[in-house]
């Protein structure tokens, strides 16, 4: 019996080493997991989040600029104050978004896209201004400049903006997967540490005939707290991150797609008239865009199916559909008038100032989509902030708990070891 007892201090130290290693492991993995989550969420609100928002704004602003430039061309040499403002605002939004994106890009591919867009933007505005000048001078060649500007936008700039947006959204959803992941390694180590602590207490009480070892009990309590905090913080931040996607980023992506598609359809409608009804390709492209918007199972249908029961979005989605359908049926009349040679009437119907002009329904569509986009963007920001908040202090707290548990366990076992030398 004495010989066996002589090895007990060694055994105690061995148990302490195992308990210490497990607590340490749980502490480190738990803390790094929370830090990593926090960094990823931080990234969605900063870098990749800002890049996504900038890319989206850029894409929207460019589409809007083109639609406005094309329709204002149709009003002759004197576009309305409102149209002028709308074009200038779209250009400002595009340049600001481009500058923001330039500061946030992290990959060579994105850097090149931003550079491509940056190089083309002044060329585009140059063509638009040349078109306006010739138009003002009454020279028909202005129309060709406007068409060339739109071709540059359609064939080179919008695809680049689209790619940039796709890349940014890809990064964002990758971040989301990381942020939603549960820290399984930390959880497993925590459970192992708790198990070992319980076993060590049973083992000690058998060896020493004392029921409680206060140090180990303290360590166990602290580790239970550790496990609880880890689970709560991870689940809560995961939930908020999921909400940021389902209620925010999800509708945001579809809504902005709808908004951009509507702008592009509007640009094609104007181009059809700028070409004096002699551009069959513009008519085809208009049909493609409007089908993408209101066709069966397309953007507005998808929005309706996914968010139709969302109280904040459903009204906007319904308004958008109604306006889009009014616009689309009115467009048929515009084409008919243009094809029949009633060109002036066609232009008046498409871009005129009257209440009955298609500008009214297009603006209603655009406003409804913009309102819904804003709601979704706010929700995304709120949920991301909540996710961030649910993690605040968790890393430091977990480290403190693990440290406390480690000290308690060491003290508890050390007290038993000391008894052998007393």
């Amino acid at each position, binding site marked *: 019996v004495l010989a066996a007892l002589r090895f007990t201090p060694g055994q105690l130290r061995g148990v302490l080493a195992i308990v210490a290693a497990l607590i340490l492991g749980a502490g480190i993995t738990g803390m790094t997991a929370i830090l990593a989550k926090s960094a990823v969420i931080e990234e969605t609100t900063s870098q990749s989040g800002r890049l996504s928002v900038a890319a989206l704004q850029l894409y929207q602003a460019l589409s809007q600029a083109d639609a406005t430039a094309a329709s204002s061309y149709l009003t002759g040499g004197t576009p309305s104050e409102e149209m002028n403002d709308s074009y200038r605002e779209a250009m400002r939004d595009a340049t600001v978004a481009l500058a923001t994106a330039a500061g946030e890009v992290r990959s060579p591919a994105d*850097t090149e896209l931003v*550079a491509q867009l940056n*190089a083309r933007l002044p060329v585009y505005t140059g*063509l638009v201004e040349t078109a306006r000048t010739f138009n003002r001078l009454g020279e028909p060649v202005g129309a*060709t400049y406007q068409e060339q500007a739109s*071709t540059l936008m359609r064939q080179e700039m919008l695809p680049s903006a689209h790619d940039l947006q796709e890349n940014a959204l890809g990064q964002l959803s990758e971040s989301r997967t990381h942020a939603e992941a549960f820290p399984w390694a930390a959880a497993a180590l925590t459970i192992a540490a708790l198990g070992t602590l319980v076993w060590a207490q049973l083992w000690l009480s058998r060896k020493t005939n004392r029921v409680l070892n206060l140090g180990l009990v303290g360590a166990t309590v602290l580790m239970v707290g550790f496990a609880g905090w880890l689970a709560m913080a991870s689940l809560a931040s995961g939930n908020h991150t999921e909400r940021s996607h389902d209620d925010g980023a999800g509708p945001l992506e579809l809504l902005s797609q709808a908004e951009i598609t509507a702008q592009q359809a509007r640009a094609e409608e104007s181009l059809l008239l700028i070409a004096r*009804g002699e551009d069959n390709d513009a008519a085809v492209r208009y049909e493609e865009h409007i089908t993408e918007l209101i066709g069966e199972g397309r953007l507005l249908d998808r929005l309706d199916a996914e968010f139709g029961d969302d109280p904040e979005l459903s009204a906007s989605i319904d308004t958008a559909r109604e306006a889009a359908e009014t616009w689309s049926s009115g467009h048929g009349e515009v084409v008919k008038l243009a*094809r029949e*040679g009633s060109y002036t009437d066609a232009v008046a119907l498409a871009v005129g100032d009257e209440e009955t002009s298609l500008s009214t329904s297009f603006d209603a569509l655009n406003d409804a989509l913009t309102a819904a986009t804003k709601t979704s963007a706010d929700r995304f920001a709120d949920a991301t902030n909540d996710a961030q908040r649910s993690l605040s202090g968790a890393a430091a707290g977990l480290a403190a708990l693990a440290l406390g548990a480690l000290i308690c366990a060491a003290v508890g076992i050390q007290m038993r070891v000391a008894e052998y030398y007393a």
Partner: protein
Amino acid sequence: MTQHRTAQPPTATRDGRRSPKRPARLAAAAAAGLLLAACTGPANMEPPNVDVPTPLPAGIDFSPDASPAVPDTSCNPLASYNPGAVTAEQARAQLDDPEQISIGISQSTNLMGYRDPETNRLAGFDIDVATAMVKAIMGDETKVRWVPMISDDREPALADDRVDMVVRTMSITCKRWENVEFSSEYFRAGQRLLVAKDSEIEGLASMTGEQQVCTGASSTSVGNIAAVNTEVQPVTVPDFNDCLVLLQQGTVDAVAIDDTILAGMAVQDPTLHIVGEAFSQESYGIAFQKGNTDLARFVNGALAAMIADGTWQTAYDTWLKVPLGVDAAAPTTTYRD
């Protein structure tokens, strides 16, 4: 803690004392790593290579098929139908809607058929000719529906009953005679060159292999250019108006199209002028659906009347005399019967 430190065996001390620092250090390292990962990026990236952006029209073709045109002598294209004694009523019987005539025109060919950007009205030489025809056939120049169309659409629009006739810088050729009926020739144009005044180019023949000449994709120009000069590089665009923009932007050195169309371009830019001899003959005629010969006969009579009473000359003087720089008279007409 102090109390136990002295009593602790060395191993336990090491474990117990160093452990608190370890997670902190690891955490610091992890945090530093994350920060580093977040901060790497643009600073390490090469500036991207971006091509000089050159705006180009959709559908531009820098290497079109350029086999030299062979003159078609299979018919006498200019011989149309003798007006004879066909009445306006007989002509109207061949309209799709006897109350309203539909005429295919261009709204985008400056000086020939275009929508004046200032007044938003249709104007041009072709429009004046067409209006005279409306007056003759319908007795009222408002009984007309103007149908704008691209040049590729001219023959299908007649065949599909979308229009009764086409007055749209349409050259009379033997090949087209197979699908439509033509009136007698109402204007004789020719393909020439539009170039910058300060360029050395004096004509198509003297252009070099370094130079590019722009023309419409659907016109016969590419073949006509190749028949004169096989060195020069032809460039085609779907809409010839893009040629003017490309010339102004310096992308091409010259535009080769009918002089009537070139005149409409030259008046929009005082730094450009038309040069060289015509290297093709383009005889414009009014086209009708195949079989509508009564309509063609009546229109031939109306054209002859328009030439005789000076309406033709007024139209020419209004639109083309100054830009083309020549006094021209109406072409003499020949009939096949």
